[in-house]
């Protein structure tokens, strides 16, 4: 079976290494983009089964990127996980308004992300 493809949009390179290591072990194929704009270009050029994105990023933040993906009928079906340190009151709600399918805090156990990835890719 072909590997499922996940795009990670995250400006912290070390963190990308960490998530990739975790997800590659689960047989996912990982591509990374280091800012929102690069993320958008990649989404337009390739098919992904899931997008994991940070919120605070250079060039285009995760809220905007998520809205652009979710409001374009071509990509709207791609599930989005916001993986962020933003734990403030309003943030989660904003994330969900922008169309994120799941909102995971970076401080949570990596298994939380893993289970969300599995759940959303299965759908």
């Amino acid at each position: 079976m072909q590997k499922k493809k996940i795009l990670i949009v995250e400006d912290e390179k070390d963190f990308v290494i960490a998530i990739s290591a975790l997800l590659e072990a689960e047989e996912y194929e990982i591509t990374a983009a280091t800012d929102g704009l690069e993320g958008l270009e990649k989404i337009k050029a390739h098919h992904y089964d899931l997008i994991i994105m940070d919120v605070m990023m250079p060039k285009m933040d995760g809220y905007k990127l998520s809205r652009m993906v979710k409001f374009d009928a071509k990509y709207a079906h791609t599930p989005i996980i916001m993986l962020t340190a933003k734990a403030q009151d309003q943030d989660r709600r904003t994330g969900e308004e922008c169309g994120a399918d799941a909102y995971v805090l970076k401080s949570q156990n990596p298994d939380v992300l893993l289970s969300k990835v599995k759940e959303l890719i299965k759908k």
Partner: protein
Amino acid sequence: MMDNFLTSIYNVSRGINSAIGLENCLKMVLDAAVGLLNVDMASVMLVDKSRNELSIRYAKGLNEKIIKEARSVLGSNNPNEVAAWVVQNGEPLLIEDIETDGRFLKRNGKKYSTNSLLSVPLKVRGEVIGVLNVNNKKDKKVFTRDDLGILTTLANEVAIAVYNNKLHDELVSANERLRELDQLKSDFVANVSHELNTPLATSKYLLSVLEKGIPGPVNAKQKEYLVLIQSNIDRLTRLIDNLLNLSRIESGRFELKREPKALEDIVKEAVVTFRAQAASKFINLKISLPKGLPDVYIDHDRIAQVFVNLIANAMKFTPDKGRIIVSAQLLKKNRLADNAVLDFVEVSVEDTGPGISAEDIDKLFVKFQRIPQKLDAAKVKGTGLGLAITKEIVEAHSGRIWIESEQGSGAKFFFTLPVYDEEFFFVEYLDKQIVKASDTKGNVCLLAFDLASIMGFKQRFTPAQFEAVVEQLYKTAKENIRRPTDLVVRQKSKNRILIAADADKAGAAVLIERIVKDLSKKKIKDKDDRQISVAIRAVPLFFPNDGSIAVDLLKKLDMPLGG
């Protein structure tokens, strides 16, 4: 004359107290002075401490150039200007004829254009802040002691007005500064949270990768150390979370974002964080929740923090091979302080630690308090913040937290969370929006769509069909609200759909139209299988015109329409 005087003073005084602004106030006083004393000119001069001079703040009967340019320098040993003399001596001055008096010269050495003049100091708390001057009696008469009395009374009013105005200005700028500081602090908290969390998260993820043996097998000793690092990183994360939360609580920015949530999801999320640590201590960490618990109305992140704090606490004190159980039960019909009745879920976190003595239980929830440990001190660390914050969070949810424990036989922490009750929390929500709107001069609108109120409408359906139509309306309303702060509920007892919206009259009209239009497009069939379009209207009620609290607005709904 006396009547006239009293009326003027009364008007001036009332003007000052109704905070009409300094400018208007001074105008009133000078109008009164000119009228009562029958003069051509009157002026208020104020002391500018930084320049050590007096300048005109407001005048009548003087040309603009003089108003702008007139200055009296303070501090000379022998002031030869009237206003400067009054300020420096703190006493009123009544001059019958300035030529004969001979003490004063006009600015630039010219003579005064008047013969008799009157000047009284403006005093606040013994300090002279300016003067009130009148000169040039129209009838060329000289000022009398009576005139002095009237002017002194007016001067007192001016002094109060100037002082109030200064206080007001200071308050406004202090508030502005506070707002800026508050913004700075909240930006700082957001930044710190991001900056601290990212490296921690990276370490956490990499540790998890190592622990799972992804890059290669790990031996038992290595695994033990990895788990240790992991649990220390978790501790650091909790510490940061607690400190940041504390700073938010203390700055009063502790606003709950409540939603109906399944308790089970949050418990599972929290417990997963402790799995590795529990395994390393051979602690049996169990979740025991009854099936079919209703959703609780909570702020997800805050309650997650409550669970993490309580489980972390239990973990700290439970010895190896111990047991921690998270369980819950439904408590029906609890009476709240305001007499409202609501169901709660009671959650407990039970450990097999050393327990807590009765006198220590009282200290548990106090900030920075830590119970002196009989245990191995190295094992038990903390800021003493976790439980204090936990209590704040639970109580902010109208819940209660308490402990049952005996020295030597483990501890059981209990807390309660309210079960989600759409109608109940709608009222609370509406009140919150009203409070917010009265601070920000925003809008709060209550809309009610009542299908049962349409004559003969309900009878066209079977009960099941009607139920479906109400549900359809509920869904349509939800789809059409624009703002995340707008809330839609279905009032079960009345088959009514209520909307709390941030909308003015025009906004409410647009919202109603959208919902009505959308609903009329839905294919709804009556019991004879004929397709019908639903024509429904809603009457919008507004804060504050229709009521100043939620209950008043809701009551108004039950009055006959148009009544």
